[in-house]
């Protein structure tokens, strides 16, 4: 036994005698994880979070979360002697007078953008592959919670420097609070410690941004990962992969190296962006004052779709009985996002009600094999995308020589017309892809090799698929429609009349699929020559 092995043995023994961890460690070091590039999306989000904690902590050493007025005396000449808040001045100090300060600020901001992007793409992966199905509904809801918190945390973060752009964002947030019926004015005065902007808000959101929300994040992420660990990761279908097993590589050493290495890659790429790609150059915006604004004011991308919805809202307010309700703010700012996020959180339960499927699922769906869900996802994406495009309408207008009015009307009409259209088109595409799969299994791949038969007929040689590939294309279950029971055998009406009807209708739509090839069909073709 080498000296190193002896030391390892002693350490393991020392820890085990005090914790009894050896049995657990033995099992978990060999834990199997399936391999697929799309499983790294959530990892990117996790690593970005770690980068955010590290770079954020660095920034707190100099950032002064105070709105008291100071006169800037730092080394950035254009703002010398200008009155500004201590928050803004200290952000300038970090950017110009702390070595590595600007780098860390830019890494922090880039990491936040990547964090949100990774969450969204990870969510799309989970949605389109059906990974949210039983038993993973809780984790789906946790994920929606993390997405929501991420949007809030990101917004609070870029509001902290108190520059002209972020102050404008806060003004809009304050207007949303103020628009709430009955309590709005009060909530706004409590949140801002009086009239906008006041001197209370930035110190308050600072505590929320660096303590409260990161704490909640940490807790939720921990539970999110523990559930992934405990429930074992889902896997893509393929030969040898079943609902009862998990096929992949052991944690130690392959995933330790791959995942650990991947953390460094994500950090390295973020640092590269921070080094070469300027982001949120607050010194160009100037300190916040409510009387000024810069043209082309844009929020960060994950807020852009909300801003786009607000921009396209029709100008409707109700004035009655001495009170005002601003529908032009409430509908795009609260009601629509509320419906979207609630719908998203409840989706696993809605789908399971429609399909009547209460089984556990560990094999992922290929999106084409679940046309309705895929179409619904694309529909929601289309909606959000049009909102996002409208959020940049001023930028688009100047870049493509269009008028704001043209883009706004396109969005206003498009957001109603295009999502349903996207649903129909996506569903058709899914069914076509199913047909293509069927064709492929039954007739093989086109080889492009043309052969003339002795009697003069030309045929193209089709290359038969491997059994593995064939299995992958046909292993999925195809749902059946739930039959509508309007009355039982005794003629008693179903008490859940309307709900049952709805369910039957949805599940019929859901069951619309191209029949997948069966063993018998394949065999028949194998028997005959083709």
């Amino acid at each position, binding site marked *: 036994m080498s000296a190193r092995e002896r030391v390892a043995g002693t350490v393991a023994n020392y820890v085990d005698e005090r914790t009894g961890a050896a049995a657990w460690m033995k099992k978990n070091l060999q834990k199997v994880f399936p391999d697929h590039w799309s499983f790294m999306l959530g990892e990117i989000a996790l690593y970005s979070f770690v980068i955010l904690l590290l770079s954020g902590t660095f920034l707190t050493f100099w950032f002064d979360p105070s709105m008291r007025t100071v006169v800037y005396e730092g080394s950035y000449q254009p703002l010398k002697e200008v009155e500004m808040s201590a928050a803004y001045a200290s952000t300038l100090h970090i950017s110009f007078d702390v070595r*590595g300060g600007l780098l860390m600020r830019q890494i922090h901001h880039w990491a936040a953008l990547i964090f949100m992007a990774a969450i969204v793409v990870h969510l799309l992966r989970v949605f389109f592959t059906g990974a949210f199905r039983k038993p993973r509904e809780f984790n789906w809801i946790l994920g929606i919670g993390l997405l929501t918190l991420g949007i809030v945390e990101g917004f609070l973060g870029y509001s902290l420097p108190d520059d002209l752009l972020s102050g404008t964002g806060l003004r809009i947030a304050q207007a949303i609070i103020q628009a709430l*019926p009955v309590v709005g004015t009060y909530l706004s005065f409590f949140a801002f410690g009086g009239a906008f902007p006041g001197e209370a808000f930035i110190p308050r959101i600072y505590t929320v941004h660096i303590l409260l929300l990161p704490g909640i994040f940490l807790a939720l992420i921990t539970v999110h990962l523990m559930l992934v660990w405990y429930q074992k990761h889902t896997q893509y279908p393929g030969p040898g992969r079943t609902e009862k097993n998990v096929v992949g590589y052991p944690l130690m050493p392959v995933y330790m190296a791959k995942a650990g290495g991947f953390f460094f890659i994500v950090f*390295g790429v973020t640092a590269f962006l921070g080094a070469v790609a300027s982001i949120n150059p607050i010194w160009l915006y100037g300190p916040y004052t409510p009387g000024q604004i810069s043209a082309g004011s844009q929020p960060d991308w994950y807020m852009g779709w909300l801003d786009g919805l607000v921009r396209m809202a029709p100008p409707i307010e109700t004035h009655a009985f001495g009170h005002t309700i601003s529908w032009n703010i409430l509908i795009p700012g609260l009601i629509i996002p509320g419906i979207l996020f609630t719908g998203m959180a409840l989706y696993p339960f809605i789908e399971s009600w429609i399909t009547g499927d209460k089984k556990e699922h560990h094999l992922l769906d290929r999106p084409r094999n679940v046309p309705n869900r895929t179409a619904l996802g694309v529909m929601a994406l289309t909606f959000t995308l049009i909102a996002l495009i409208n959020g940049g309408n001023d930028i688009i207008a100047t870049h493509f020589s269009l008028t704001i009015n043209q883009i706004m009307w396109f969005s206003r009409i498009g957001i109603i017309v295009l999502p349903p259209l996207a649903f129909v088109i996506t569903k058709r595409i899914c069914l076509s892809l199913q047909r293509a799969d069927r064709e492929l299994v039954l007739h093989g791949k086109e080889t492009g090799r043309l052969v003339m038969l002795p009697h003069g007929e030309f045929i193209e040689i089709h290359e038969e698929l491997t059994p593995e590939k064939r299995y992958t294309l046909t292993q999925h279950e195809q749902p059946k429609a739930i039959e509508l029971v309007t009355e039982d055998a005794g003629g008693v009406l179903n008490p859940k009349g309307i709900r049952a009807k709805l369910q039957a209708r949805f599940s019929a739509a859901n069951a619309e699929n191209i029949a997948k090839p069966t063993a018998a069909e394949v065999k028949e073709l194998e028997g005959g020559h083709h």
Partner: protein
Amino acid sequence: MSKELEPLADPGLPEHIHRKADIDPIAAKRAERQVAILFSLSAVGTLLFIYSFFFIKVDQFIFLPILGNTNAHQLGIGLGMAAGLFFIGIGAVHWAKTLMPDQEVIAQRHEFKSEPEDRDAFVKAAKDGAEAAGLGRRPLIKRTLIGAAALAGLPGVLMLRDTGPLPGKELEKTNWKSGTRLVTDPGDRPIKASDLEVGAVAQVLPELLPGQKRTLEDIGKDAVLLIRLRPAEFQLDEERLSWTHEGIIAFSKICSHMGCAVALYEQTTKHLLCPCHQSTFDVTRAAKVIFGPAARPLPQLAITVDGEGNLIAKQPFTEAVGPSFWERSS
């Protein structure tokens, strides 16, 4: 029928194919060297960071293609740190992919559902527990506990009361009074009608009395935009026309939609545009909304001149400025 629907059989996990490094010691050695080179590149990156941190001046700029004029210090430490991290990652992944075992392993899953006996026992334990506590039998305890717990949450909410003052009529007031002089922002100089040419725009604030200080809250409700047109261009009613002076019209600069500064004036169309959500107001028609999400015109400030010819407010705003709120009556 059921036989025909039988799905294709699972051929099972395909056979494992060895990588070059698994069977060829030379390839394995090469892979080892590659990993070592990648790790060394990381070390070079960190050295670049250290060098840049100490020896490149913070205000040293260099010109680079694509990036343009770039701060060399920032670039040096940034690229150094990026390389230091990135190559550790790439090295580790390359190591895992070439030299660590790549044979897929099968682990079994277990259903999460507990055994029926366990579940029944759990439900029974919970029931028995509740039974033992007597919650069902003693409704008085249950109800008072629920009531007390709900009340106990109240202090947490109530204590937030002092986070801010009550709004009162604050949102309906500005610092514009009858006779308040308009002063330029920035500069705080009184302004005469002749200072503004036709087509010109100016931002003004109420004049400060001696000893007064202006806060951002003041600016947030007092900011006013002056625009001078030819008087014939107005399409205003008698009253609103009397609020202008020699073609100069004054509007609150705080958007009636969400409070942004309505800063963009288009001279040819005489439209004011809010850069936040593109609400567009027609200056000739008392800032009527002609496009975008705003539902109300910008409040107009009645102006006139004092004895010295300086522009002054004729009267306070007749309505609340800024975004809507519940208590707003019009």
